[in-house]
């Protein structure tokens, strides 16, 4: 039964990931990416990590997709404008890079023995366990996260301020 659910989620994820690449309209690509990320969240639940699934939906499906859509709206996505960034005469370079990257990925995937992967032996990772680890063992990294978020916020405001002034 679990395998059946995994196959459903995995195949929908692969198909929607293909849609992200193949759709011409970037807004449709963004929606397909949203579906793909939701399926990955479902796979996280199957891997006994419900907190990670919540993070996936909360941060990626929620917040990052909003950012993507806003970027799509702000950028000029007409063909002529895009060609300024990707000139047709440099396309051969792109066609040369894609097989190299594909080969690399295949090498990594085929070279990995997926022995230790899968759900942990202790069953489901509860939020309580994560919380306890976060506030005892990983206290400093937790506080560093807040500084990191602060830096990101200040950086984004400084960079965007130049544009709106």
């Amino acid at each position, binding site marked *: 039964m*679990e395998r059946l659910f995994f196959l459903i989620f995995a195949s929908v994820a692969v198909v929607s990931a293909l849609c992200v690449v193949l759709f011409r309209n970037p807004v449709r690509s963004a929606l397909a990416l949203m579906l793909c990320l939701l399926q990955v969240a*479902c796979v996280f*639940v*199957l891997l*006994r990590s*419900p*907190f990670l699934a*919540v*993070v996936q939906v*909360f*941060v990626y499906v*929620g*917040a*990052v997709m*909003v*950012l993507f859509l*806003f*970027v799509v*709206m*702000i*950028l*000029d*996505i*007409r063909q002529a*404008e895009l060609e300024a960034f990707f000139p047709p005469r440099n396309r051969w370079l792109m066609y040369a890079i894609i097989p190299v990257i594909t080969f690399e990925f295949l090498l990594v995937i085929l070279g990995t023995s997926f022995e230790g992967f899968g759900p942990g032996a202790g069953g*489901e990772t509860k*939020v*309580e366990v*994560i*919380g*306890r680890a*976060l*506030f*005892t063992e990983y*206290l400093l990294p*937790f*506080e560093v*996260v*807040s*500084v990191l*978020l*602060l830096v*990101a*916020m*200040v950086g*984004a*405001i400084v960079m*965007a*301020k130049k*544009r*709106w002034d």
Partner: protein
Amino acid sequence: MLLNYLPVLLMSGFAAFMAGMILYVSSILSPHHPYREKLTAWECGMEPVGDADTGHFRVHFFIIAILFILFDVETLFLLPWAVVIADKSISLLAYIEMFIFIGVLAVGLVYAWAKGALDWI
């Protein structure tokens, strides 16, 4: 138990199905009599100028999205905190820690406010 998550899956599947069906059924049942004027973008009674997909949106949307992501991640950390806060052995420490965490991010919020990133001109 994995079975506990089945209602969540059913609920989200049902919600997605309902949303899709409402769009589909209304597109079937509604009358279609399109003509040129009807298909133009509605711009408060003005003549539409240019296209919507040519990057005429303000950069300000972007900064709002960034702020949303950052505070979203912050609220995410509140979830494991809220679960363990009842535990007496670490509750005081966790309580103080979370206030430091929120305090640091509040500095960012004050900065954004002072720089006018939250104003909509």
